């Protein structure tokens, strides 16, 4: 090892504790700026982000003070490993902040597509994760003139919409094993973080869907009804109009409990 590299290694090594916390302070500030954290977490966890920022800031400050007063001594080589692990998530955060869960995640998670009953008791007996949400955040529509119905709202109030023409939005995905001509329009529900996201959506068939690529955001119009799909009566849409949409802003990609 050359003297320059050794000097640098010693310089960083002695300041590793401070540098890790400073890196996390910057990461929290970056995540809070423009609500980037919402690519990963519920909006109501904003307070949690501030808590992380505050404690990281305090730890960074005392680490710097401890270093400057000579109280933190020499670091062991293991400190590099500890520091490396603590920095690692920042790399992944930066890489993933402008992406969203899509068709691949959909293929790994059960889809809540069935229809609610009218009473709470009936609803509880049915297979629809959206039903046990008491307070779904009503996100603003992407486009104003005609307000699309949220997929969650559509499924939660199925009786009100069944047999009628509906405009809704979501991601399009055509699984390889879906019935011929059918794809899905879906979105993800997030309880706390993207790790617990549950997809919710409806089957869709009709003109204009064949040309879509998977994970394309779409606004679809059509009549919704129950259809026998894969041995079950499931909500589906006979699509009469498809419009491609740009991906929504970070905070509008998921539906939140």
């Amino acid at each position, binding site marked *: 090892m050359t003297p320059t590299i050794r000097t640098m290694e010693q310089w960083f090594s002695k300041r590793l504790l401070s540098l890790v916390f400073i890196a996390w302070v910057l990461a929290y500030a970056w995540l809070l700026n423009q609500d980037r954290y919402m690519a990963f977490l519920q909006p109501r966890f904003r307070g*949690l982000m501030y*808590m992380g920022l505050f404690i990281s800031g305090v*730890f960074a400050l005392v680490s710097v003070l401890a270093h400057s*007063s000579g*109280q*933190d001594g020499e670091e*062991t080589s293991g400190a590099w490993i500890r520091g490396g692990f603590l920095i690692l*998530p920042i790399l992944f955060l930066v890489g993933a902040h402008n992406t969203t869960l899509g068709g691949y995640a959909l293929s790994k998670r059960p889809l809540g597509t069935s229809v609610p009953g009218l009473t709470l008791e009936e609803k509880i007996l049915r297979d629809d994760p959206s039903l*046990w949400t008491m307070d779904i955040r009503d996100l603003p529509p992407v486009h104003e003139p005609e307000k699309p119905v949220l997929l969650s709202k559509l499924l939660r109030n199925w009786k009100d919409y069944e047999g009628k023409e509906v405009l809704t939005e979501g991601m399009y995905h055509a699984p390889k094993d879906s019935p011929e001509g059918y794809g899905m329009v879906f979105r993800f529900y997030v309880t706390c973080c993207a790790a617990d996201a549950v997809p919710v959506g409806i089957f869709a068939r009709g003109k204009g869907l064949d040309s879509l690529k998977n994970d394309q955001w779409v606004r679809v119009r059509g009549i919704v009804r129950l259809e026998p799909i894969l041995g079950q009566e499931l909500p589906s849409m006979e699509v009469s109009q498809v419009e491609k949409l740009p991906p929504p802003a970070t905070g509008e990609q998921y539906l939140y409990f």
Partner: protein
Amino acid sequence: MKKPAFPIAYSETCMHGHRAPRPVNRAGAWVQSLFLILAVLFYILWGQEEEFRTFSIIFSSIVLEAFPFMLLGALIGGLIEVFVPRERIAGILPKRPLLTVFLAAALGLVFPVCECAIVPVVRRLIKKGLPLGAAIAYLLGGPIVNPLVAASTLVAYAMTWQAAFTRLAIGYAIAASAGLLMDMFFTREQAILPENRADHGGCDCRNGCEASGTFLQRLYAGLVHGARDFFDIGRFLIMGAFVAALLQTMVSRDIFASAMGIPLLSILLMMVLAVVLSLCSEADAFVAASFRFSGMPFSAQMGFMVLGPMLDIKLVLMYLSLFRKRAIIALSSLTVLLVFLSMLVMEYCSP
């Protein structure tokens, strides 16, 4: 060398003359270095793949959700270190060990912490002389037997209080049982890593410094302890989150649907899912509740909600900073067994 104004650092230069904390051992260092290198390579080589993007989002979200709680836990642990003398802990605890364990299992009701925050807190309490059984009872019970978890379970289960009550009651019983059983089979020396024991000569404030210095000096010392603790054990959380995210990305949750008709298999699979998902105890009820609409037995949902806060991938790795490997294996096996048996009783014996 300049003498520190206040004893806070655990290093070769410690004013107490104690040795540095246990360094990462050679084999561990190699494994962890390899892990890090592979993670970075993984990022560089597959960064554009959809599977990788899914993984990145899940990994980042687990870390982001857990980090603030772990920071808080490290902060509380550091403050306990300097503001709570050992004698105070000994004075608070009942004289009878059995009673101490039962009390510790319910401590979360007044001192609620989630599973990410509890490890650094328990680590400090053990250093302050908390008995092994009581430490384990609090470690397992704290993230379940607490008002925040009760509230989230209530909301997730549409205000069905039986679900919340059952979860807390079973969590309490298992935490207390595990504490008592671990106390029977292990001594402190056999279970706890030397640097975490009060009888060991590492450099912490147990040697009287909590009673010395001004309030600000002690506060400062507590904060540095907290920062050090976080730096010391944070990597276990990252490794656990990484493995959990990898499994979540690769393994389809649909395989769990195939076992819904068989309660015994459902319980086992939901327990596996709890370990793999590594969700926060204040969020997992919502995921468990999502399974009830697809016919998953209540006992299996409960198995998921009781085991998850006690044992998951990131927790097992975080236990490495606290216990010896043999004790971790025993504690993990015991927890799994107790949860499984409780759920079988619930499934087959409850009205």
